[in-house]
């Protein structure tokens, strides 16, 4: 096992990795930007290296600076977390070239799977079902139109180098092909520097189900069951659960085999996620492989009891998996809610700012992977994730009840969070009934407004708070003792 690793990330995921390392007796080097000088991942690591300015390109996305930090700290391996450089093949290659271990798949695998067309070809050759469509880039509108006619509308035009919903167009008829092709291609060119696009069948009513895989460098590969990730806003997941509602042991067996086949076909090593679309008939199609630790990995950890980050380190240091497929058991049901500093009433706009007060929920089966504290300033420069709240229950209904209770106990003052929205989603008939497709939020919660059930209590609380003088009991800034003026002591006079 490594003596020391560098964690090339920030926030809750950097803490997650640091905590695993501390349990394993591995020293950690954190990196941080100016905005994160007082961040928890910096406070909790064995040592920390400043990267400089807050702009991602000057800090967490800066390969040279991170490599420099690796050399300076003498770390033997680098954990990239998720986001930032996690799926950057150039970064992984550079780390490999420096003679340091990249805790993730080999750079060549990241490169191949990062190109959607190459990935489709690998999967097709490996016997993994892919969505009907092209396996070569199609710049010629006539060819794309012919292909679209063959697979049937609606179709999706996608960027080969895509991600984050960019360079994607839904096309309902042949007449729209040329425009959509040009639009998707120019968007892809500006977002990814590569205008290659291709066409595949579009499934308007589909579930997004992914399989967690683990593969070691000795040829062993297994899956750790599935996660249902259909609750999304702006193409980003916000609620994930495991097991999936539609899953049967038979379908899990089939999809799990496909996921392991995907790992083998691509030469995968370390932890990864194979994403599938499952249509209304229960047919499934390969979507892509996420070559990193996923944000939602805790739901899998909760039901399987397997520490995925620990496994990542073990695999990266050359150890064998030590678990066979038949050893993997799922117990109960786990749900994760991602809490961002964002406002569900205004299309989930980020609302960064200072957290005035913060109190996490606790109790049986409740886990919080957080990165903030009272007084912490959620930086404007990065993904405004506050924390992930994960619960485990005996079954889905009990997990839902546990999540609603935990959300109700979660106190975040100072920034807006989607907690009331999450509670309403979890309480809804649609969610409880398992009617979950990727269009869930636009379909059921497009015009969501808070129910304000406690409106009367809130008005009374305002008055009581005024009269109680709580706000004036704030401690005076350190070292600034001063004689109170009558204005401090007047209290709340009213006529």
């Amino acid at each position, binding site marked *: 096992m490594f003596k020391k690793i560098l964690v090339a990330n920030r926030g809750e995921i950097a803490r997650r990795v640091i905590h695993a390392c501390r349990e394993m007796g591995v020293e950690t080097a954190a990196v941080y930007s100016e905005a994160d000088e007082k961040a928890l991942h910096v406070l909790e690591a064995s040592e920390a290296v400043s990267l400089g300015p807050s702009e991602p390109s000057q800090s967490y996305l800066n390969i040279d600076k991170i490599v420099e930090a690796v050399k300076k700290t003498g770390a033997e391996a680098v954990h990239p977390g998720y986001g930032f450089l996690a799926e950057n093949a150039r970064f992984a290659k550079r780390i490999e070239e420096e003679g340091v271990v990249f805790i993730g798949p080999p750079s060549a695998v990241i490169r191949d799977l990062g190109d959607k067309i190459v990935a489709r070809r690998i999967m097709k050759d490996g016997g993994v079902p892919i969505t009907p469509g092209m396996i070569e880039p199609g710049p010629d509108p006539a060819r794309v139109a012919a292909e679209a006619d063959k697979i049937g509308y609606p179709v999706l035009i996608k960027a080969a180098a895509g991600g984050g919903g960019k360079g994607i167009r839904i096309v309902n008829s042949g007449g729209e092909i040329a425009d959509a092709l040009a639009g998707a291609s120019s968007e892809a060119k500006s977002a990814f520097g590569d205008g290659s696009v291709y066409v595949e069948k579009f499934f308007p009513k589909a579930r997004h189900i992914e399989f967690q895989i683990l593969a070691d460098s000795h040829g062993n590969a297994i899956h750790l069951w599935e996660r249902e990730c259909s609750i999304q806003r702006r193409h980003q997941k916000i609620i994930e659960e495991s097991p999936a509602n539609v899953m049967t042991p038979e379908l899990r067996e089939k999809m799990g085999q496909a996921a392991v086949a995907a790992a083998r076909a691509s030469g995968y090593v370390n932890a990864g996620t194979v994403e599938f679309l499952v249509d209304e008939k229960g047919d499934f199609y390969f979507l892509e492989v996420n070559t990193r630790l996923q944000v939602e990995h805790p739901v899998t950890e909760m039901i399987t009891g397997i520490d995925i980050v620990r496994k990542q380190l073990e695999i990266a240091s050359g150890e064998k998996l030590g678990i066979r497929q038949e050893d993997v058991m799922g117990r109960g049901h786990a749900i994760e809610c991602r809490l961002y500093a964002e406002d569900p009433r205004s299309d989930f706009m980020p609302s960064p700012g200072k957290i*005035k*007060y913060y*109190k996490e929920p606790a109790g049986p089966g409740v886990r919080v992977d957080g990165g903030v504290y009272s007084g912490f300033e959620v930086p404007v420069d990065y993904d405004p994730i506050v924390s992930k709240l994960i619960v485990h229950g005996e079954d889905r209904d009990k997990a839902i009840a546990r999540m*609603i209770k935990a*959300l*109700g*106990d*979660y*106190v*975040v*003052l*100072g920034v*807006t*969070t989607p*907690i*009331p929205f999450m*509670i309403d989603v979890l309480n809804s008939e649609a969610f409880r009934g398992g009617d979950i497709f990727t269009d869930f939020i636009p379909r059921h919660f497009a015009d969501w407004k*808070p*129910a*304000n*059930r*406690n*409106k*009367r*209590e*809130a*008005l*009374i*609380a*305002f*008055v*009581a*708070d*005024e*009269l*109680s*003088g*709580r*706000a*004036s*009991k*704030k401690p005076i*800034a350190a070292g*600034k003792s*001063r004689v109170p*003026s009558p*204005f*401090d002591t*007047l209290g*709340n006079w*009213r*006529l």
Partner: protein
Amino acid sequence: MEYNLILDGETAPVEVETEGEGKISVTIDGVKSDVAYSVIGEHRIRLVIEGKAVDVFVTGDSSGKSILIGGESFLVADKDAAGQPSFRKVAVGSLPDVVTAPIPSVVVSVAVSEGDRVDKGQAVMVVSAMKMETTLRAPYSGTVIRVNAGEGDKVMPGHVLVDIERDEDGEGEHV
């Protein structure tokens, strides 16, 4: 006494009578409730409304409080509270021609330093008095020649806190 509270853009009249130490009766929409309250911590108060306990987390002051109850969050403000920064629009044309505090205050933060260029209406200092923060703004465009108060200083009305040399060609305005 009566409060006019703003929640979600609507004004709610709230009639309050003091019944004793930590005890009030509150009438909203014609419904009266007996309420007991106590401060639990810096951001936590406990209410007992008609015998029912309510755990409340709160931050802010009269000009606006963020109130959290059982996973729901509310922004509530007192319509009649003086100097509500979040509800009062600062009319740039009506600024005083010196930077000074409206009432005896404590300086919370200083946004400019000597030599800085400032535009008319730009925030230069934040002062706090009676639990309310007020942003002081530049009365005209110009250059900061001196900052006369620092963080934590007590300041009085009329005390010029920031000296600004007015631009000669400052859009020709004379305040």
